[in-house]
């Protein structure tokens, strides 16, 4: 079952679309679930399908098409490192290697305490700050160096997202 908060948020989205086009809210609905749970399980997709009156498979198509939806638990803080060309030229390979070494996990994995997960991402449209990663697809962190990464991780550990 979708939580009441999520249902309320979806209802706000639905106002934007014609009454017979409820499925237009599917991307937002998936986002709300991910915001609440950190990832989207198949059961959540089935719930969204039922709520919006659309085929389950159609929800699955959307959820698997977009990279930013987590289809498995990705930790409390998902660090998505851009590995596209600009970032790569500015050293994203080093950023990724440092993160992996520091957290002791590989791409697509989460730390044993469930706090951090690392993903590879596509261009974030802010190449001027390369190399960069996002935290939970929301906060952009750029001009990353080992020191800066240490600081960010320490802040997150300390509860300041």
């Amino acid at each position, binding site marked *: 079952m979708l939580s009441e908060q999520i249902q309320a948020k979806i209802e706000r989205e639905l106002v934007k679309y014609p009454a017979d086009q409820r499925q237009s809210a599917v991307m937002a609905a998936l986002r709300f679930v991910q915001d609440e749970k950190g990832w989207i399980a*198949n059961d959540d997709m089935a719930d969204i399908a039922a709520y919006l009156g659309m*085929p*389950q*498979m159609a929800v699955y198509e959307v959820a*698997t098409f977009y990279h930013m939806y987590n289809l498995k638990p990705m930790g409390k803080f998902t660090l998505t490192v851009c590995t596209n060309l600009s970032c790569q030229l500015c050293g994203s390979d080093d950023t990724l290697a440092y993160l992996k070494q520091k957290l002791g996990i590989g791409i697509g994995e989460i730390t044993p305490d469930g706090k951090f997960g690392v993903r590879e991402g596509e261009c974030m449209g802010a190449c001027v700050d390369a190399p960069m990663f996002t935290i939970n697809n929301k906060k952009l962190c750029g001009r990353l160096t080992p020191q800066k990464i240490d600081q960010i991780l320490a802040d997150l550990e300390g509860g300041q997202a």
Partner: protein
Amino acid sequence: MIKIEIDGKLIETENGVTVIEAAHQAGIAIPHFCYHKKLSIAANCRMCLVQVEKAPKPLPACATSVAEGMKVYTHSAQAVKAQKGVMEFLLINHPLDCPICDQGGECMLQDISVGYGGVASRYHEEKRAVLGKDIGPLVSAEEMSRCINCTRCVRFGQEIAGMMELGQAFRGEHAEIMSFVSGTVDSELSGNMIDLCPVGALTSKPFRYKARSWELSRRRSVSAHDSLGTSLAVQTKSNRVLRVLPIENDDINECWLSDKDRFAYEGLNSAERLTKPMIKQDGKWHEVEWQTALEFVANGLRHLANGAGAAHIGALATANSTLEEMYLLQKLVRGLGSNNVDFRLRQTDFSGDGKQQGTPWLGMSIADISRADRLLIVGSFLRKDHPLLAARIRRAVKNGAQVNIIHSADDDLLMNVANKAIVAPDALLETLNQVARDVAAQKDVGIAASLRSGERVAVLLGNFAQQHPQAAQLQAAAQQIAAATNGKFGFFGEAANSVGGYLANAVPGTQGLNAAAMLETPRKAYLLLNVEPELDCANPQQAMAAMHTADLVVSLSAYKHHALEYADVLLPIAPFTETSGTFVSTEGRVQSFKGAVKPLGEARPAWKVLRVLGNLLKVAGFEYDTSEAVRDEALHGMDVAARLDNGIGAVEAKPYAGQGGLQRVSDVPIYATDAVVRRSAPLQATTDASMPRVWMRSEELGKLGVQPGTTVRVSQGGASVALAAALDDRLPKGVVRVAAGHAATAALGAMFGTITLERA
């Protein structure tokens, strides 16, 4: 009309069509994969790129509309270069496994790559692999690496079948066709995805590795199951039916085939086939020669006719029997002096007999259904009883038609329903009468408003309405509504020959007993043509009691079934693929067909068996050489179109029998409708053929104190069966739904009536 030029050929075409349609009209082939004339345009395979004058780049012919003066080149250097380029990309990831691929020899990719593919691949990197999926017993998706992602199967599900069970998950190079959480594809039309798949990704599971397409001989045939009269291509090898495919016929099935018609053939060679005549003597079954068996039957019938009287002979046939078979059956019993012959085995209300102005039929052509703008469908498990008609209506609804439903169960029709009244069986007639009164009073409420606003109204009575104890009154009410709305009304025929049975005169007339009366007041002898009484009759309890008390039961059947318990003689007859015959579809189309293979073992076409019986009994006029001669005699001087008439005179008002208690609502499950289908292993493995459950509302579950899934004892007419309980809050109050036509419920009584439940 506008003028365009394709490959230098001047073509006049309608404005708004696409280039590929215009080219096909003019007989010019453009290679394509994702384009299909009955599906929406996706334009994702890019195979149909053509050069258009003044366009800077090649354009996809399937997604480009024609324009006045347009010049298209399908084989210019630019077009061919583009097509070859696309072909090369499509083949990059396609496995080179044609020798072991079931599609080999009938593969669009194979054919088109001969024309546009390179001699060798320039791609030496690793190919992508896609894991196979298990999507059920009918469609194989074992080799999804072959998929070229044309999405025809996905669009078919969305647009024709009405349920999107397959989809394209992930993206780019990782895109793959799959179902949600590895679910099965349960649509009753799923087999069409096999035909649509242009490569060998979706193939027929029962047909896998059985034969190559070029080894098969094709015979034209007609569906022996539902009443649509679907055109079939029966494909055979070594005297065995190996596959059934649709033959395109826009007036009937278009290019589709229901799974029932497609996979029923697997039941033809079932181990239960009866291949030798058998006689029961001293309680033991003996295989005998035809001569012995037929003489035994003839002696028995003659003895009875001369002794107790011919009125003690009753003949029953299923509506899946051919016109010829039913004609000879009635001619035989009438020749013996009995008029007890009927094929309407699940009908319970015969009060319309003698008041019908003609043969009940669809009341319109099948194509007319697509053109109707307001429909009222009364008492029909539409999707399961008539899958392709449901698909037609679904498309009509998408084009703006309104569908109104009056029924006793609320199954999802996978289409928008304008109004529906889901009422208990005893309220069905009153609900329809209310609509009739509203329409007559020109009231704009609910269903009446919808019907009154239409120009082409169709009122259609389904199987449930025809089996209903007040069927004649329902027909009269439908007649009133149709007259008041200037529309048409008719029946969805229950089986392949529901119209043909009337034309063959396999009905008792005023002298004889109808199907129900014949079983209610048991006869001394029964002739059963294709009938399994415990599954095919309206009241299996009564039918079986009659069989057990009869002195002589002659079962003409393709299968050894429960007849072994009550019959005295079993005569092996040929199913529709092994005999010639004629079916008259629900729209009154008379379609004859030839046998596709020789009868199995010593089975013989039923018309020949009946002919010899006629000769042995010295009934006059049984000298036929061919089934065509039988047909010509049956239809001699008959204007079939003039005979079709749903009109009904004044009928007596009969109350709904049975008061109080829970009312039974019965459907005949889609894969339990006739003998062949019941024995098709792949169909019996589908979700639709799962064990019947007893469906009830939550308050009934509460009263019994059980959960869905708990076994419940269901009793009717002194017998009971144990079935799992299931929850359906969309049923009307006081209604319990229990399927008929299934071995698990055959011990119960009538399809309509009161039923009791208790904890097991």
